[in-house]
């Protein structure tokens, strides 16, 4: 009995260590991309438990991926439940484009998110759109992974 308990605890410790090291690897590490769309969670914040605040895009694209649509459906559900909250959709581009085109691209990305939220029952008068183009990267790296984190639309509470 006593021995079993010790083994159990030891195992728990090992599992915990593994989990920790996995976390550590993830944090410092490479993150993930599918195609060139970011699929990791490094920069993601949460509007509420289980409701990620941002979606990511492929280079020069404003098409929502399957994962992005899932995120936006969660946001829509949360917004329907919290009808007093208004939001700003902040659209961003990576640094690999001309400044003015990227302003337009950020606006297009934020509007792609807006359209999707509206289809899922969020009224357009609760949503405003703001493009930052490439002016506010979250990751200052000059590599494909950093750029993938910066191509994003972030849902921010406005009130």
């Amino acid at each position: 009995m006593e021995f079993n308990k010790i083994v159990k605890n030891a195992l728990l410790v090992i599992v915990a260590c593994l989990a920790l090291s996995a976390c550590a690897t993830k944090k410092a590490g490479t993150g993930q991309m599918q195609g060139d769309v970011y699929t990791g969670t490094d920069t993601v914040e949460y509007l509420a438990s289980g409701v990620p605040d941002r979606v990511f895009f492929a280079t020069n694209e404003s098409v929502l991926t399957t994962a992005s649509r899932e995120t936006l459906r969660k946001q829509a559900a949360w917004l329907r439940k919290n009808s007093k909250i208004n939001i700003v959709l902040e659209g961003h581009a990576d640094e690999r484009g001309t400044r003015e085109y990227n302003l337009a691209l950020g606006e297009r990305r934020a509007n792609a998110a807006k359209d999707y939220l509206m289809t899922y029952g969020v009224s357009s008068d609760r949503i405003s759109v703001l493009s930052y183009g490439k002016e506010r990267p979250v990751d200052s790296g000059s590599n494909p992974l950093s750029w993938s984190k910066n191509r994003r639309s972030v849902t921010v509470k406005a009130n």
Partner: protein
Amino acid sequence: MIKKIILLVFILLPFNAHGLIKVDITRGNLDPLPLAVSPLAIDNESKTKFDEILNKKDIGSEISIIVEKNLKTSGLFNPLNREAFLQKPDIANLKPRFEDWKLIKAQALITGKVNYVDEKLRVEFRLWDILAGREMMALAFTTVPTNWRRVGHIISDKVYERLTGEKGYFDTRIIYVAEEGPKTQRVKKLAIMDQDGFNNKFLTLGNELVLTPRFNKTSQMVTYLSYFKNLPRVYLLDIETGTQEVVGDFPGMTFAPRFSPDGKKIIMSFAKDGNSDIYTMDLDSRVVDRITNHPSIDTSPSYSPDGKFISFNSDRSGYQQIYVMESSGKNVKRISFGKGLYGTPVWSPRGDLIAFTKLHKGKFYIGVMRTDGSGERLLTENFYQEAPSWSPNGRVLIFYRETKTDNEGKGFSAKLWSIDLTGYNEREVKTPTDASDPSWSSLLSN
């Protein structure tokens, strides 16, 4: 702010270009013309006066240093070291001993003198052809002493014009965005400086993000994008008075502004519901016209110098490319067909070329093409650079360049660079802080 310079032409020799020096500006000049800029002579009394007023020990020498630096920067001239000069400034200005200047291999010589006259700065200068042994030009200016740097720039312009046959670009200013802080939280301010980096002045405080300032070619007005109150809008700024106003009343983001060549309109993009189109607003009547109507991104518009055409970039083909249309918006034609993406078309002041930014295989290029898209020529390649702006004579482009950061995301910088249309003479334009989005003014004096 810009005080009028009174310009007096006091000697005009019969124009006889035959046999006189001529600098060919149209090709890369790997063999710049050796010339001597003699310090401008100054009498002791004037010297003392200007030292009192301007805190400059020898204003004559200071002005000649400006001329020397401008001419050297142009890449067309090689100003010789003044240590080697054999003749004293005051005597050289009366009548140069041509053999002495030949000996140090100068082909042209600039002399002059400075006087304090009725609280004003009076400068005269002469340009001499050493090999032909004769005077090519003589001019005099009178102005307020604080304009002394501009006098140096005007002399440079006159010499440049006389030796190349084309107008200079030294008595000009650059408006740009001064940048500071980490890449993820850049603080940006509008700033203005003389073309050579002097007299730098910040025009905004950095409380809100500002981008893409552009000069009106006909006045001291500037149009730019500001995120004042987190609403990205095109603004108009009078740099003489500091007054600002929003351009138009658009229900969304306006951006990418430029003036029409007559300065009466602003052309810009307006973004709504994920679609950016090009609009103009007349500054007097406030009438807004929609120029493009297409579900693609249409932006970075720039007028031809005669105002009849507009170039812009659009992704209507699926990718960012350059188009030209009539100023009414009719007859839209794609002109860029090379490999890669093309953006930021800017029509040259001479009307024959369009400068652009190109992205191909992860590299950024500044290039030029004819207005029908033919004759594409790439001038410079780098990790990141964009937004060319023409010198008023259409011979030099200024643009900005950003560095690649290291693995920790450190080492970011943004700087202004210039390059000749020939692809030669690439150089950094020094600014007190990091800098981007430069726009070149027209000549302040003509």
